[in-house]
């Protein structure tokens, strides 16, 4: 019986071919349509791995507990394409006096006395053919919108995650091209390839 129906099915080859074609076309176009319509701001997270840093810098303490503005340390962000790692002198500015008993701070002081700065590891990295600029993004999302600068961390968090709840930074957003693109489409950002790729 089973065998028979099996045979029956085999006979009808045209059906097979039609099914195959339908699947082929459907498989390509349907998701295409789904994606084409999608201009929602990017969602989706990325579970980055823990990056060991020379000094386990506690963002949470600085941001949440002490309410220090991101751009106080990452001071180049609004003036340049790169946000910049704060210079050791800036750290020492406070930590000459503050929390000098903490092992991390003592490590930092060692560096300072050796006149070296720590070899930080890059966490949020993009390929070298991508030219992202912090300056423009801050202009659009903070200064042009009269967004309260003291809350700038909410804007930073969009790409860098909520650092107020981390110690050392961890990549929590995909930072892939599609991710960028969807945000640009949602917020009317430039769609010109040569904006980011040169």
């Amino acid at each position, binding site marked *: 019986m089973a065998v028979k129906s099996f045979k029956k099915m085999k006979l009808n080859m045209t059906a097979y071919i039609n099914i195959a074609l339908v699947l082929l076309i459907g498989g390509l176009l349907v998701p*295409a*349509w789904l*994606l*084409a*319509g*999608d*201009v929602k701001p990017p969602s989706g997270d990325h579970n980055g791995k823990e990056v060991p840093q020379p000094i386990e810098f506690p963002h949470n303490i600085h941001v949440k507990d002490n309410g220090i503005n991101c751009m106080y340390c990452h001071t180049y962000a609004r003036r340049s394409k790169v946000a910049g790692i704060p210079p050791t002198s800036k750290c020492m500015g406070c930590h000459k006096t503050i929390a000098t008993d903490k092992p991390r701070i003592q490590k930092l002081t060692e560096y300072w006395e050796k006149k070296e700065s720590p070899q930080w590891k890059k966490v949020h990295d993009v*390929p*070298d*053919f991508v*030219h992202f*600029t912090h*300056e*423009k993004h801050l*202009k659009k999302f903070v200064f042009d919108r009269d967004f309260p600068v003291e809350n700038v961390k909410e804007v930073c968090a969009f790409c860098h995650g909520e650092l107020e709840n981390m110690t050392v930074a961890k990549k929590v957003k995909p930072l892939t091209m599609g991710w960028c693109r969807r945000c640009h*489409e949602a917020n009317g950002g430039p*769609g*010109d*390839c*040569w*904006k980011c*790729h*040169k």
Partner: protein
Amino acid sequence: MSLENVLNNWSKYRRGAEEGGHHDYEHKWAMMINLDLCIGCNACSTACYAENNLAVVGKDRFEKGQAMHWLRIERYWDQAEQEFPEQGASFLPMMCQQCNSATCEPVCPVAATYHTPDGLNAQVYNRCIGSRYCSNNCPFRVRYFNFYSYYESSWPEPLNMQLNPDLTVRDKGVMEKCTFCVQRIRVAKDKAKMENRKVGDEDFKPACVQSCPTSAMVFGDYLDEGSQVRKLWDKYQVKMGPAKQDKQEPDMRGYRVFEGLNTDPSVLYLERVREKV
């Protein structure tokens, strides 16, 4: 370009196809080269090497015709039949003409070369798969292909410290060409934008224009009525866009190379002048 984008802007693309390149630009970068002042000294070409991370290919590969000079100075003898070139040589700085209806754009299978809103003929290195169709279809032959990986051979330590971080170092398998120094354009535009003003003539110059010892090259925004380059185009009665030029004074010097092919280049050349002695 998402599919929706294509469908929404279909009419625009159609129009582009009819008029040759889309013409609703925010800027239209253009150049003017006065061949009577060009002395063929190579300064522009070398400036280009320095600014745009061009690979030095070496003697053997140069011999094979694989050099990467984005801006080359072509030298011709006009009086082929005479024993001596008594009127000197004719020099032609030839770089990507940034055509408005560029023949390289429609043929790229992956749209790695396309037209930017500011009227540049873009080449996106990281999208390029190296089919080289664009170069085949370029009548000026100004697109150069990375036939090898030049990183080690062309920039031995510490020469690589000179590489310009504002633009990508191309690796093997990628097409490249003159960009009108897009990295400078972008920086200037961003700066202007941060200061909430429009970018102007004095904000920047491409490397070649900046170095030219006789100031034979002029660069600027064609759409900006006040710009020097626009004034010159108007003076020499050459218009960008239309297939047919109608000069009130047909003897005016301005012309574009291979005008007849109707690729609508953005580079205006002024004929060289000679006095018969």
